[in-house]
């Protein structure tokens, strides 16, 4: 979906066209953010509109068999501001070096796939009203719950209008809604001695669905109460079930780098055909997910992209390339240019030069059935409900964190809650190294979308667990 918005890149490109040596590219963005902050059961602060408009200019300059990439980003949209941006980008290009003799930026000839849902229309048209309505609906779910109450939260909606223009004549635009949701539920009271328990939900998603709030709040309240009576897990290798919301914090960050042209340049990408997972692991790069964080008919350079297998039955199918990293290996772009920056939860893309990465990931469902059937099949093990933070390390492939809440699986059923201790290891490693992907023994049949990942729950056996007693 594209609206007749400020068309930032097109306006900047109009100034540059005919005056700037090709190739060049402008990524423009106009953002309006609206926020509601919650403290306890009240709205603490209303913020918005918070408006940001800016662009990133990228220049590709040939020099002695390599390319000099110049990039400069700014919110200065005046003509002198644009002139300064060109000057800075040219200066950096003259000192930069990238190992490709040339690169082709996409042209407008490249067809893109059809409409992909990236805009929550209600949020787009009535942002404050939609956020306030959602906040009131959310808070009203706690009426009558007694000692289980909301403690802290924020709902932030960013409405972005992105535009791309380049010296090849390409002009594309994409509207997108992004919702950052953070909410903590506290359980307290009851018999003396038990400290309060808090379940802390953090999400980034493309829409703000109101369906299912009641059942979600029920789930969060149960987790907050479970934390109060949680025990410590035992140490040692165990069967662990990872639900999609836990996998979403690990997979995109590590696979997005290690299967990319950027990793291949540094000899860190496994060769196509290499085995890095079990036969249960088939994963697609999937920009078609409705309201996925990385969804859209084209990537952040304007190249068309489509659903494509990157891991099939545990083996690497192919890499992820943008125009530049594709050129380094004499390959076309796979439509995987991304401007999502590390730690940029605030959704500003124009400030980042594109890098190859995943759009969204889709993990092919298996025959493991529902979560309840996976639990029954596991028999004895751990259901991992939430990690503190998985801190995925894209270079080494390591991940891991503290168990904020999980459950013992006993006799094929969820048992007592657990908390504390560490679950972690490698997502994928070198040949023969134990890893999560190599240890997947079963995949569920019911995928769910969490941010930029659609996946079922998966069983990992064995997984290292550090708990109460040492080994």
């Amino acid at each position: 979906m594209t609206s007749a918005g400020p068309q930032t890149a097109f306006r900047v490109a109009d100034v540059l066209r005919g005056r700037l040596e090709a190739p060049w590219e402008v990524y423009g963005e106009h953002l309006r953010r609206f926020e509601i902050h919650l403290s306890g059961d009240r709205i603490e602060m209303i913020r918005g509109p918070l408006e940001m408009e800016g662009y990133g200019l990228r220049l590709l300059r040939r020099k002695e068999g390599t390319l000099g990439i110049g990039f400069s980003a700014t919110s200065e949209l005046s003509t002198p501001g644009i002139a300064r941006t060109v000057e800075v980008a040219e200066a950096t290009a003259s000192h930069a070096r990238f190992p490709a003799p040339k690169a082709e930026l996409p042209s407008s000839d490249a067809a893109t796939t059809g409409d992909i849902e990236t805009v929550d229309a209600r949020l787009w048209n009535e942002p404050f009203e939609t956020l306030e309505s959602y906040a009131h609906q959310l808070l009203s779910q706690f009426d009558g719950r007694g000692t289980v109450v909301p403690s802290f939260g924020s709902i932030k909606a960013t409405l972005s209008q992105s535009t791309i223009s380049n010296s090849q004549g390409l002009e594309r635009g994409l509207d997108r809604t992004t919702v950052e949701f953070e909410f903590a539920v506290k359980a307290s009271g009851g018999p003396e001695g038990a400290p309060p328990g808090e379940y802390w939900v953090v999400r980034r998603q493309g829409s703000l669905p109101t369906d299912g709030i009641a059942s979600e709040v029920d789930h969060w309240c149960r987790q907050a109460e479970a934390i109060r009576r949680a025990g410590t897990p035992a140490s040692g290798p165990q069967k662990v079930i990872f639900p999609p919301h836990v996998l979403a914090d690990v997979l995109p960050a590590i696979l997005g780098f290690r299967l990319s042209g950027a990793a291949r340049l540094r000899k860190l990408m496994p060769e196509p055909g290499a085995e890095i997972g079990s036969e249960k692991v088939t994963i697609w790069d999937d920009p078609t997910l409705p309201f996925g964080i990385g969804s859209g008919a084209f990537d952040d350079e304007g190249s068309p992209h489509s659903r494509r297998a990157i891991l099939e039955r545990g083996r690497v199918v192919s890499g992820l390339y943008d125009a530049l990293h594709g050129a380094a290996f004499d390959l076309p772009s796979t439509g995987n240019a991304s401007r999502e920056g590390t730690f940029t939860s605030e959704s500003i893309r124009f400030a980042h030069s594109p890098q190859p990465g995943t759009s969204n990931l889709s993990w092919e469902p298996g025959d493991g059935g529902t979560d309840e059937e996976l639990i029954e099949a596991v028999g004895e093990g751990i259901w991992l409900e939430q990690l503190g933070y998985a801190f995925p390390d894209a270079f080494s492939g390591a991940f891991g964190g503290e168990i904020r809440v999980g459950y013992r699986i006993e006799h094929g059923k969820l048992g007592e809650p657990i908390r504390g201790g560490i679950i972690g290891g490698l997502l994928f490693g070198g040949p023969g190294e134990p890893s999560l992907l190599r240890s997947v023994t079963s995949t569920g049949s019911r995928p769910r979308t969490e941010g930029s990942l659609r996946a079922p729950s998966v069983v990992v056996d064995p997984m290292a667990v550090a708990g109460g007693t040492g080994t």
Partner: protein
Amino acid sequence: MALLTDHEDHFEKALRRLEAFSSFAELMAERSSGGRLRFDSSAVSPGPAPRLGGVVLRAWDGQRWVEAAVASFEPTALAATAQQVIHRLPARTSATPPPGEAATGRAERVVDAKRPPSSETVEDRIALAKEWFGWATSVPGIHNAIISLFDTEDERLYLSTAGARQYQRLVRTGASVVPIALENGRVEYDYMAEGRLGGYEVLDRITEDRVLEVARESQELLKAEAAPTGSMTVLMDPSTSGTFAHESFGHGTEADQLLRDRSYLKPLLGQVLGPECLTLVDDGSWPDGWGTIFFDDEGHPAQRTVMVDHGRFVEVLHDRESAAAMGRTARGNTRRADFMGRPFVRMTNTMVEPSDWTFAELLEEAKEGVLLQSCTSGIEDPLGGQMQIKVKKARSIENGQITKRYSSMGLSGRVLDVLRAIKGVSGPEDFAMSPGSCGKGHSDILPAGTGGTYLLTEAVVGPA
């Protein structure tokens, strides 16, 4: 280039528009810029940090704050943004002022960078990175090293209807060196990072000896053994103890969380929580710290706050509202990530103060356990009182001696248990500050320094 203060008349006009509709209003204008360089075996990528600028306006509606922001200094855009705030204020101006004491100071403070980043050419930066790269890759087995240089200039002007005018220009410079060791598809690395308030003189701390050491450590990690799991004696290095102070205790002392009943520390103020050797401090006025500021984003001067004094929990960090609610004074800890971000009670530079143990004594005391090194991250659990800290490498302690290597470990535990289990903290000769990034929850990331010495305690550890 024009200064932020060149637009001050426009800012004043926008603020005066709000004054007619609110008992108190304030404005924070910001402009940021800087430089970056990434250098490794495959590419040289210099580039400026984004040049961003804008203004946030905040007004009190009698019950809560209302804010709007715009990435512009143009009078029409500022007027429109003020109008957006006015639109959300009640028709009748409330006479009720916001809680707490408004800052009234008027000052200008600028970081005195001896070698301002703006005077360093791209060639100078590349030459520096190339030299470090050469040192790192001179170690056998290290074929690549990722060198990153970064500097920012952050200019902020705070104005309020109470008469405050606080201008500050902060220059931060930092760098990291990450030598990559690769063998049969296994990837390992150690890292070093420096970052402080100041110019390129900060990077003089990155020496050949330090780069060689971190490169050798990266290579040695290829031989790392499987990490132990379970509860054991843990010796934290200075980077880890600093993160421990920040994540485990610092977030729990942010007073907005106490007002929300969202801190496990709330009922413990005034109590003894740790041994005599434990003193924890937050200090926004620390000379040249990565998280140092002159004023906070409510206009209050930054200062030193002792949170734990020789084991006793004595003070928390405040903004104007929490200070009023708890009968204290604002302590310069209200920070916005940028003009688009909201103000929160935040840490600045958080540290474990040195005590009087030596490293050798702590090792001997530990007898068996692990030494955690090169901290990479942590995350808070303000109500639950748990903590998670991750490190890039660790060493086994056997019989008081450092032995085997482990890679990528995590630490977990109840903060109060870990505090009570502290056996010793080493002296000033081991003290080190590290640059870091801090979020409030999972957003609003801003620069924060951490510091500490070696600290001996007990916790659960495992691979992560």
